[in-house]
């Protein structure tokens, strides 16, 4: 892999200053094996060398946090002696190269993070982003990625219960595949990824080690994708979900029987990462017996064995007396296992060729081919203070508390520029509902097993997923969200909005958001604009989580998401898990009864920037996105939870992509009944119908519950208006208020008075939009 005339460290993706830092830490020049180990551990992917200072600013603590960032997955208490583990991770670059295997191994990797904690994986959510759906390459990628997520998840028996599929031109050269996994464990069984106790054994079990993804961690994740340098072409990793299923069962048995002191999955940087991170967390060292590592291929160089990313492997740190039990478990599950090293007290990762004797000392004639302090590879890896410069185009808004209307798009800005296209609001609604981004995702999730493990109360397709917890009355509610459109206009606001929407999606079912995981997909951090976007997003993420009082318990950072000449929209993908004490009390988004009163909670602000309507109809480039007032968001979510708990609300849905008109249409389609509504218009009808200003929700009221809902809303200082009633075969939306009077031109937005569309028409557009966009209909 060493290109002629290029020094090895550069060929491995290490900068000259990084080599210098390595020499300082070692007090000497590293040999080639050590250099390879540093190159993978000091990659952006493993070291977080650009993002770590930013991540340190996030709120990560809370009363029910059992494990936060730094572990394989965040863990939070959920009562009855149980805890939930969840984490999100990206597999963007591998999926761009080989979509099926890239997505499949992405699922495998995040699942290992979950069961390494001792949690049984109970659900997967996949957040996917691609370019133009009519493009042949995009279709190939979508097909492969969806196939890979399903192919792996279905086989290991973990249901895929949610996620996203978003098409945006910025992802054309660089698709995003983020996968979130959730697991359940007994609180007292939580396992840590540490290697305590000098003298303890390091056991490698699972698949044998081959030349999979050699250099992947450094090369694949740190070189701008699309680079033609052949030494940076990835070696594709192939996933084996069958082996993973056996690995899950064996690992959970090992942990449940208390056979291990520490467990770590092997992912990026393979064995090197596994041994140095576990040793570093325990302040110990590990002596690695290279010859003991089971190989799949002959003739592997030592560095290949050490950094190979062969899938479906784990390491367990055990006391010597446990070895027979471990071997019995692995044999029963048909998994090879081998003692590949010993925990030492010296804090070093030492690699020995030639074998260890029974007491774990290097055999006579063996030789040490590498010795590096564990912390130098892990917690004390190099950190870069990157330069952050806002783009000239626009500054950052501050979605702080208080008035919150920091930068409000003026109605004029919106109105002045709206094209004649979309004159008929009914037509606009049909175009939105039938568009690639807002139409039904059925084509995707029917390829996923949504029910295995029989906990799925609400699967993919209609807002947050609901999973009952067997043996209790409780349920978990999970969702992923990201507003990349607003993020590209204002990364701070975009991240804050993403947290607001994800938590709102949980609260609108009646559940309480517990914690946040996230995956920060950004560009080249050495570009000041890209790093500015990242730091703004982390600031927005932190502010929103502090305001909502929930911790960030884990996540992942994926940088260099740039195809030559094009960076992705900043994409701070947010995953939220919520808890409900009584699954029976949760509500869905479908209208449940005819002639029921329907209310709108929350107030709309101006601004169409970043909206689905703007993407469809186009708006003035200076039209700002709607602002976010976090205090109002908190109030709305508290109101929603208490209203649902009080039993006043059989159905609720928050206002998000596509605005009020789209929410009403969805609730009607899903409920199999239409409705007639009058919507107050402050300014632009386009804003009233299709604006996406946050902190709003539509509620169906139980008969007679309207007065109670009004006073409850007043208690929470949440504005609420009755906008109509359910029933009928059509969706009718009239506009009320001064904004609705006068000629369409004066009103701007070119929106006429009413939406009046047959339910069947709406349903048809919504159901066929995606397959049509992908040319997959027929």
């Amino acid at each position, binding site marked *: 892999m060493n290109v002629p005339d290029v020094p090895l460290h550069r060929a491995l993706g290490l900068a000259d200053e990084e080599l210098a830092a390595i020499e300082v830490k070692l007090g000497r020049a590293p040999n080639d094996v050590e250099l390879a180990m540093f190159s993978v551990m000091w990659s952006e992917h493993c070291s977080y060398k650009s993002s770590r200072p930013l991540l340190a600013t996030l709120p990560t603590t809370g009363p029910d946090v059992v494990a936060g960032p730094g572990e394989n997955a965040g863990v939070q208490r959920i009562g009855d002696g149980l805890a939930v583990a969840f984490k999100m991770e990206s597999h963007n670059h591998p999926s761009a*190269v*080989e979509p099926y*295997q890239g997505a499949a191994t992405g699922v495998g990797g995040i699942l290992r993070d979950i069961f390494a904690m001792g949690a049984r994986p109970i659900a997967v959510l996949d957040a996917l982003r691609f370019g133009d759906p009519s493009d042949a390459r995009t279709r190939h990628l979508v097909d492969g990625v969806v196939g890979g997520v399903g192919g792996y998840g279905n086989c290991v028996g973990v249901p895929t219960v949610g996620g996203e599929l978003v098409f945006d031109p910025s992802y054309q050269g660089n698709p995003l595949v983020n996968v979130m996994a959730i697991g359940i464990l007994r609180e007292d069984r939580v396992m840590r990824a540490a290697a305590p106790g000098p003298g303890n054994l390091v056991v490698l079990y699972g*698949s044998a080690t*081959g*030349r*999979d993804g050699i250099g992947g961690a450094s090369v694949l994740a740190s070189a701008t994708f699309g680079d033609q340098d052949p030494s940076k072409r990835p070696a*594709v*990793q*192939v*996933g*084996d979900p*069958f*082996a993973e299923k056996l690995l899950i069962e064996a690992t959970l048995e090992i942990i449940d029987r208390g056979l291990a002191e520490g467990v770590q999955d092997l992912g990026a940087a393979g064995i090197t990462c596994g041994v140095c991170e576990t040793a570093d967390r325990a302040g110990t060292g590990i002596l690695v017996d290279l010859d003991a590592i089971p190989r*799949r*291929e002959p003739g592997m160089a030592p560095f290949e064995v050490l950094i190979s990313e*062969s*899938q479906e492997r784990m390491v367990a740190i055990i006391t010597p007396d446990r070895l027979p039990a471990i071997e019995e478990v692995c044999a029963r599950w*048909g998994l090879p296992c081998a003692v590949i090293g010993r925990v030492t007290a010296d804090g070093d990762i030492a690699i020995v060729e030639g074998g260890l004797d029974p007491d774990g000392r290097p055999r006579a004639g063996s030789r040490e081919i590498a010795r590096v302090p564990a912390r130098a590879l892990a917690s004390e890896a190099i950190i870069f203070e990157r330069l952050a410069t806002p783009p000239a185009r626009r500054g950052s808004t501050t979605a702080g508390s208080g008035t919150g209307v920091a930068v409000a798009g003026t109605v004029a800005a919106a109105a002045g520029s709206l094209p004649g296209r979309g004159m008929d609001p009914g037509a606009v609604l049909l175009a939105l509902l039938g568009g690639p981004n807002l139409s039904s995702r059925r084509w995707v999730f029917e390829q996923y097993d949504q029910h295995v493990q029989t906990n799925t109360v609400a699967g993919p397709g209609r807002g947050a997923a609901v999973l009952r917890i067997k043996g209790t009355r409780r349920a978990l509610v999970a969702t992923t969200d990201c507003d990349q459109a607003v993020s590209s206009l204002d990364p701070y606001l975009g991240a804050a909005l993403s947290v607001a929407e994800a938590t709102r999606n949980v609260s609108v079912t009646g559940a309480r958001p517990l914690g946040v995981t996230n995956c920060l997909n950004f560009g080249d951090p050495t570009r000041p604009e890209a790093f500015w976007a990242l730091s703004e997003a982390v600031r927005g993420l932190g502010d929103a989580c502090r305001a909502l009082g929930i911790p960030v318990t884990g996540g992942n950072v994926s940088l260099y998401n740039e195809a030559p000449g094009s960076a992705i929209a900043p994409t701070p993908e947010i995953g939220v898990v919520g808890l409900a004490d009584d699954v029976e009390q949760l509500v869905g988004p479908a209208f449940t009864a005819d002639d029921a009163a329907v209310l709108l909670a929350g107030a709309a602000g101006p601004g169409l920037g970043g909206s689905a309507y703007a993407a469809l109809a186009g708006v003035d480039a200076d039209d700002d996105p709607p602002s976010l007032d976090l205090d109002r968001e908190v109030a709305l979510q508290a109101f929603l939870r208490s209203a649902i708990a009080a039993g006043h609300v059989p159905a609720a849905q928050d206002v998000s992509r596509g605005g009020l008109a789209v929410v009403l249409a969805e609730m009607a389609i899903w409920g199999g009944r239409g409705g007639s509504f009058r919507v107050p218009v402050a300014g632009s009808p386009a804003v009233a119908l299709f604006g996406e200003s946050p902190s709003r929700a539509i509620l169906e009221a139980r008969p007679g519950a309207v007065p109670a809902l009004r006073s409850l809303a007043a208690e929470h200082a949440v504005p609420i208006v009755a906008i109509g009633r359910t029933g009928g075969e059509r969706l009718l939306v009239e506009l009320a208020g001064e904004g609705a009077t006068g000629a369409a031109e004066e009103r701007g937005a070119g929106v006429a008075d009413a939406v009046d569309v047959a339910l069947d028409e709406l349903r048809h557009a919504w159901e066929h939009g995606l397959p049509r966009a992908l040319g997959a209909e027929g």
Partner: protein
Amino acid sequence: MSTLDAAPTASFRFAVNVTPKEGILDPQGRAVEQSLPHLGVTGIDHVRVGRRVELSVAAADLAAARALVERLAGDLLSNPLIEQFEVEALAGASSATSGPR
């Protein structure tokens, strides 16, 4: 649609054998190997499981036909990142393969 440049005079049958590249993990092959003891079979190893695609090509001559199949094998029938292929000319225009019974 039919090609204008060459008037097909004959039909040729080919097989394209697609197998996992050396060094690429082959979960199927491994699973087969692990299952052999259950069948009381020993002495078998290096099992690799791939695909076999058989097709008929109308072309002016064998060379032209093979060229087309080679192209197809690389572009559509195999994934060059993880698979290798080999094109095999079969006797006659119809499948030469048939079960022993």
